[in-house]
């Protein structure tokens, strides 16, 4: 049981320097958590600004320039500073070595370096924010990005640097999974969170360098006019899109795979049920990671790329739907004959099943060659990827935070408040984004500051208004969560070592864990989800 006099990783050693120079994966995870939450708050601020501006047609309170910078910063911050590092670098860093029964990740120094590199990249993004902002959209499409006079260089350089932090985390995870598993733990005894993180790390290692070279070339294009993207110099701007999406589509799976990985944990643990189709879920993570590399062109169906490559990309895109569908059905079936506790993390897991299904199904519209033509670059796309990124990843992230919070800090938050806030999130999210599907298929284009010039302005206004109010409810939900989680640190009840009855290694150590993770070397006694063999009272 939790014992204040015991030395845990949070309290020992003490002092700010012991944190800044720590090599402990748990502390680095928490430092990452703090950093990404700050980024999330910043990104959320911009999102609310956008929604308020779109409440009514015409200019509300910001001009076009400001609006353009807002959506660019919202996108860039949320993608590069929040979602990509969110689950792997914060929760993954904390949990992965614990789940494997290892003392640390394979390269603790690299891990710390990754945090500092992240902070450096964030500084560059911050700098570009204060030196006039960026107005290209987070995709930095050439040739606009090479022509605009805003601080594209510092922003892309920031993203370039952030790539290294992502690569470092990826390398660390792959090596840790290969070499640091507890004695006797085979690949098929690993928790599914580890499988998902492993697949994610593969993408981080394989795709991020291409983003690096792309952004570097974009900077060279802007500074030195090397002429490979610039049509005026004989270059081809569509090539930039190829290069950009070669990273950024797999990056979508960097974002969602860890979310899926968390859901596998949450569902099994909170339903006290052996996970259905363990191997298929594990394989499908790897399959999604690999297939994800060959579908980037489905972002370019109307970009003027050849019909032949559009066909190839669309065909492969549909194959991704299959492992994704398998996962969803497997999670749903896991619930059967379980003993389901309606805890806050479980509510997020159930919400994930519903919201991610919507995100996935609407992806089929966009993957179908002809259908994408109407929907491309409209709010349909915006709604689709928010259902995947937010309804998927962020919901899973929230579930994960609630799931591991007692383990990380040894304190239990107020479950009733947790469920209360969940309702805000669920309702607010759907209010914000569901009507955007209709908005998009009716033709409302994304990245529009003003929609008063259309014949259908009144229709758009109704949908946009609904969205904006939803966003406010969503914002309130996040504030409530922040409040009760912070409050729990001060007056939360001791959580105990294993509040949910988890069977993976991290629940077998104290909460919070000691610096060396385990008092004694952990020994594998059962599989990660053997709820049919281990009595709940024995856990």
């Amino acid at each position, binding site marked *: 049981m939790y014992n204040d006099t015991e030395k845990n990783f949070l309290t020992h050693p003490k002092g700010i320097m012991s944190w800044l120079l720590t090599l402990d994966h748990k502390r680095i995870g928490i430092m990452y958590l703090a950093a990404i939450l700050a980024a999330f708050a910043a990104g959320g601020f911009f999102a609310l600004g956008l929604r308020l501006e779109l409440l009514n047609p015409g200019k509300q309170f910001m001009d076009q320039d400001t609006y353009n910078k807002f959506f660019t910063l919202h996108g860039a911050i949320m993608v590069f500073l929040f979602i990509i590092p969110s689950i792997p670098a914060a929760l993954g860093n904390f949990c992965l070595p614990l789940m494997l029964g290892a003392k640390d990740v394979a390269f603790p120094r690299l891990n710390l370096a990754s945090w500092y590199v992240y902070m450096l990249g964030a500084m560059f993004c911050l700098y570009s924010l204060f030196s006039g902002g960026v107005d290209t959209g987070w995709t930095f499409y050439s040739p606009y990005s090479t022509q605009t006079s805003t601080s594209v260089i510092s922003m892309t350089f920031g993203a370039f640097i952030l790539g290294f932090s992502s690569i470092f985390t990826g390398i660390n995870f792959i090596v840790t999974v*290969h*070499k*640091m*598993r*507890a*004695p*006797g733990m*085979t*690949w098929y005894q690993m928790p599914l969170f580890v499988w998902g993180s492993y697949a994610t790390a593969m993408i981080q290692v*394989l795709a991020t360098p*291409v983003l690096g070279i792309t952004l570097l070339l974009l900077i060279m294009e802007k500074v030195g006019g090397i*002429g490979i993207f610039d*049509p*005026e*110099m*004989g270059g*081809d701007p*569509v*090539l930039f899109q*190829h290069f950009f999406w*070669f990273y950024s589509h797999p990056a979508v799976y960097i974002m969602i795979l860890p979310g899926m990985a968390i859901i596998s944990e949450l569902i099994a643990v909170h339903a006290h049920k052996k996970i259905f189709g363990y191997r298929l879920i594990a394989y499908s993570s790897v399959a999604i990671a690999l297939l994800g*590399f*060959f579908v980037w*062109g489905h972002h*370019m169906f109307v970009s*003027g*790329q*050849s*019909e*032949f*490559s559009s066909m*190839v*990309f669309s065909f492969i895109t549909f194959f991704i739907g299959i492992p994704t569908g398998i996962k969803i059905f497997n999670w749903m079936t896991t619930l059967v004959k379980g003993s389901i506790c309606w805890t806050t993390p479980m509510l997020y897991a159930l919400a994930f099943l519903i919201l991610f299904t919507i995100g996935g199904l609407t992806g089929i519209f966009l993957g179908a060659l002809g259908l994408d033509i109407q929907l491309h670059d409209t709010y349909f796309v915006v709604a689709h990827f928010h259902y995947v990124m937010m309804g998927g990843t962020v919901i899973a992230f929230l579930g994960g935070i609630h799931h591991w919070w007692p383990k990380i800090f040894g304190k239990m938050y107020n479950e009733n408040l947790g469920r209360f806030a969940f309702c805000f999130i669920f309702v607010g999210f759907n209010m914000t984004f569901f009507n955007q599907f209709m908005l998009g298929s009716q033709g409302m284009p994304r990245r529009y500051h003003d929609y008063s010039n259309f014949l259908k302005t009144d229709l758009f206004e109704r949908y946009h208004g609904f969205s904006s109010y939803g966003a406010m409810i969503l914002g309130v939900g996040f504030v409530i969560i922040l409040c009760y989680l912070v409050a729990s640190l001060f007056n939360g009840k001791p959580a105990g070592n294993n509040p949910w009855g988890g069977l993976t290694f991290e629940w077998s150590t104290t909460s919070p864990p000691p610096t060396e993770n385990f008092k004694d070397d952990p020994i594998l006694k059962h599989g990660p989800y053997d709820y049919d063999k281990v009595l709940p009272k024995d856990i």
Partner: protein
Amino acid sequence: MESGSKSINKKLMMSTETTPKHREFHPHILPLSVYIGVGSALFILTGVTVAASFVDIGGVGNLILALLIASIKGSLVALFFMHLLYDNKLYALFFCVSLIMLTAFIVITMFDTMRRDGIYEQRSSPIQISADIYKNMQKHEE
């Protein structure tokens, strides 16, 4: 084919097990002759590839030949100097995955850049043939 990949899989799994008992550390030392031999082969192949570039095979023949020789040289470096032949096959696997990804990247991108005239010739050719800088250059000369 399938059973082959399975057995590789098995080997990978086995070789990456972390066993509880502590293992001695034995470096794998290759005889000097291997390094000298591979080194000389690389020198000779460099000569061959330079020589081959002066023979016009026609079409993309020269390119293919040059890449073939480069690949032989590359394999020699990877297999012997980088010990892929002797080490855990996991390293080779990761290295191959990177090469496969790279090939896929190039090939699939070229599905687009090479086939833009799939339906209409008009769409593949640039509106403006040469870059603006040459205009300025000409002006400058005048």
